[in-house]
C-alpha cells in the first residue's frame, strides 16, 4: 500500500523532506542510512509517490531497477523501501514555510498547522507545468484548455475525460504520451504541434504514441489563436518562419473542443523562493553544491525542484546524494566544501551541481542547448586550456547528459572555475 500516515508526529526531526515523489522518498532512505534517526516526508497529495502516480505508462526504472516499470510500479517500490526504513511519511499535508531556524510550518489534516523543528531539510517539491500564459496564445479564454499533466491527472486518476477532439501543443514526452492516452480513451487527437524544427520527445514515444495511431506531428508550427466563447471551438495553427514568427498567410483552422498545452515543466520553487535561496536562472531551481546543499546551511534539494529530469532513475540517483548529505550534516560528517565552480560554456544550458570538489567523485548532469551529432564534451579552464574531453555520439536538448567526474580526471587541474562545453567534432581541439 502506498499511503502512509505516521503513528504520531514528533515535535522535532533530524531531517524533514518536503515532497514525497521519488526524489523525496529516496532522499529519506539515504538520510536514514547515513545517520539520521528520525526522518519525516511530507506530501500534499492524497498519497506519496509524486507525479509517477499519474504516469501509468511504462518506461521507468531501467537504470535504477534494471527492468521497465510503469510509473505507479516505480513509486510503489520506492514507497515500500521508506516503510522498511522506519520513516514517517505523511500525505495530504502541506509545508507552508521554513524559517531561518529550520522550523517547518506544516499543515496536516489531523492536527492543522504546527511547527516542526528540523536539523536538516531536503526540498523535493518536483515541478509544475508551464501554462498557456507563458506563451501568450491570443484569442478567447474558454473552458477546454488544459495543461497536459492536468489532463493526465483527470484521465488517469479520476476517469474524467477532457473533451472529444483535442489538439496538443508541444511534442515533449508528456504531450506525446497524452496523445496516445486520449486516443486509447476514444478521444480523437487532431494533431500534435511543435514550435521547434525537431520533436522534443523520445523517438520511442513518437513511434509508439503517434505513428501507431496515425496522429500527425507538425514541426515548426504553433497555435496562433484559440476560438470559442464558453468552450473551445477550435484553434488556428500556423507554420513559423526562420525567425520563429508565425506565417499567418499559411495558417489553417482546426475544429476541436480541447487544447492540451504541453510546453514544459518549471521547478516548483514557491517555498524555496520564500526561503530566499540562491537561484540559477537557467534551471530555475536553487543553486546546489556537490552535496546537493543549497545556499543556506542544512537545506538540501533534489529531483525536479532542482532541474527538470527526463528520467526518474536520475532523480533517484540525485536524491540519494541529497539524502546522504542531509544525514551526514546531522551527524556532523559532511565532507569538506567544494573547491571548483562549474560554468556552462558553449552549447551547455546548465550543469548541476553548480560546484564540485576535486577530491571526490561526482555525477554532473548537463543539458545541451541545441542538438548536435558526433560532438565532444570538454572541460576547460576559463582561458580555454583543455582539462578533459570525452566523445559523444550526439546531444539532444531533451536528453540529459551525465558526466562521471573522478578525481583522477582533474589531477592536473588547480583552478577554481571549470568551463563545460559541447562542441562539434570538427572544431575540436581549438
Amino acid at each position, binding site marked *: 500500500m502506498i499511503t502512509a500516515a505516521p503513528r504520531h508526529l514528533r515535535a522535532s526531526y533530524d531531517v524533514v523532506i518536503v515532497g514525497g515523489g521519488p526524489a523525496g522518498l529516496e532522499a529519506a532512505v539515504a538520510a536514514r542510512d547515513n545517520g539520521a534517526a528520525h526522518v519525516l516526508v511530507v506530501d500534499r497529495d*492524497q498519497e506519496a509517490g509524486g507525479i509517477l502516480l499519474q504516469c501509468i505508462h511504462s518506461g521507468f526504472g531501467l537504470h535504477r531497477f534494471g527492468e521497465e516499470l*510503469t510509473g505507479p510500479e516505480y513509486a510503489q517500490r520506492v514507497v515500500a523501501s521508506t516503510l522498511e526504513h522506519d520513516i514517517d511519511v505523511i500525505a495530504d499535508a502541506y509545508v507552508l514555510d521554513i524559517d531561518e531556524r529550520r522550523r517547518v510550518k506544516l499543515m496536516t489534516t489531523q492536527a492543522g498547522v504546527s511547527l516542526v523543528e528540523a536539523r536538516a531539510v531536503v526540498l523535493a517539491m518536483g515541478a509544475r507545468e508551464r501554462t498557456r500564459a507563458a506563451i501568450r496564445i491570443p484569442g478567447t479564454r474558454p473552458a477546454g484548455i488544459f495543461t497536459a499533466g492536468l489532463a493526465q491527472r483527470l484521465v488517469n486518476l479520476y476517469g474524467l475525460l477532457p473533451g472529444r477532439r483535442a489538439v496538443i501543443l508541444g511534442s515533449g514526452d508528456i504531450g506525446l504520451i497524452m496523445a496516445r492516452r486520449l486516443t486509447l*480513451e476514444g478521444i480523437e487527437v487532431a494533431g500534435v504541434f511543435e514550435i521547434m524544427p525537431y520533436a522534443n520527445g523520445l523517438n520511442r514515444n513518437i513511434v509508439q504514441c503517434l505513428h501507431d495511431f496515425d496522429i500527425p506531428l507538425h514541426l515548426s508550427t504553433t497555435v496562433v489563436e484559440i476560438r470559442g466563447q464558453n468552450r473551445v471551438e477550435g484553434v488556428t495553427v500556423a507554420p513559423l518562419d526562420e525567425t520563429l514568427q508565425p506565417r499567418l498567410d499559411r495558417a489553417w483552422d482546426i475544429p476541436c473542443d480541447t487544447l492540451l498545452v504541453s510546453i514544459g515543466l518549471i521547478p516548483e520553487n514557491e517555498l524555496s523562493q520564500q526561503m530566499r535561496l540562491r537561484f540559477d536562472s537557467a534551471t530555475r531551481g536553487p543553486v546546489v553544491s556537490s552535496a546537493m546543499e543549497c545556499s543556506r546551511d542544512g537545506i538540501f534539494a533534489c529531483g525536479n525542484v532542482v532541474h527538470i529530469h527526463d528520467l526518474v532513475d536520475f532523480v533517484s540517483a540525485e536524491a540519494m546524494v541529497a539524502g546522504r548529505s542531509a544525514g551526514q550534516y546531522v551527524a556532523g560528517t559532511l565532507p569538506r566544501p567544494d573547491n571548483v565552480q562549474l560554468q556552462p560554456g558553449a552549447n551547455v544550458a546548465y550543469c548541476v551541481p553548480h560546484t564540485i570538489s576535486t577530491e571526490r567523485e561526482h555525477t554532473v548532469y548537463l543539458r545541451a542547448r541545441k542538438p548536435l551529432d558526433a560532438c565532444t564534451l570538454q572541460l576547460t579552464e576559463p582561458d580555454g586550456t583543455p582539462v578533459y574531453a570525452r566523445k559523444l555520439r*550526439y546531444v539532444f536538448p531533451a536528453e540529459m547528459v551525465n558526466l562521471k567526474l573522478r578525481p583522477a580526471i582533474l589531477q592536473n587541474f588547480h583552478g577554481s572555475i571549470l568551463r563545460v562545453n559541447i562542441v562539434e567534432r570538427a572544431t575540436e581541439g581549438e
Partner: protein
Amino acid sequence: MSVEEKHATDLITVGYLCIGCPLGCRLEVDADTITNAVVEVRGYSCRRGKDYAIQEHTAPMRLVTTTVAVDAGLWARLPVRSRTPVPKDKVKAICKHLRSIRVTAPVASGAIIWVDDREPGIEIVASRAMPAR
C-alpha cells in the same frame, strides 16, 4: 510508416524510425511481399537499429497501459498493464474492452484484472495496489 512498392514482383520497402536512441535513424526494410520475410535492412548506425527494424517489421509488440474503473478506491481509476507486450494491432481493442471493466477496492498490486480467453498470453494486471477509501 511509409510503404512504397519498389519491386513490382516480390519485394516491398517499408520505412521505420529507430527508437533505440535520439539519433532516430531512418530505417528501411526490404521484405518479401508474400512471406513478409526481411531480406535487407538499411539506414541503421548500430546493431540495435537493425534488430529493431526486423522485430518491428515482423512482429511489432507493445506493452498495454491503461486504467479501469475501481469502486470504493482511493482513486476512481486503477492503472493496469499487460503482463508482457502484446501484438501491436491488438492494443486498441484491448483498451476498448477494458473501458467496460469495473473492479472494487482493495486490489493487490499485480492482481489479474482480465484474461483474454481467445488470445492466449494476453493478461491484464493491476500495476499498483489500490487501497479502499
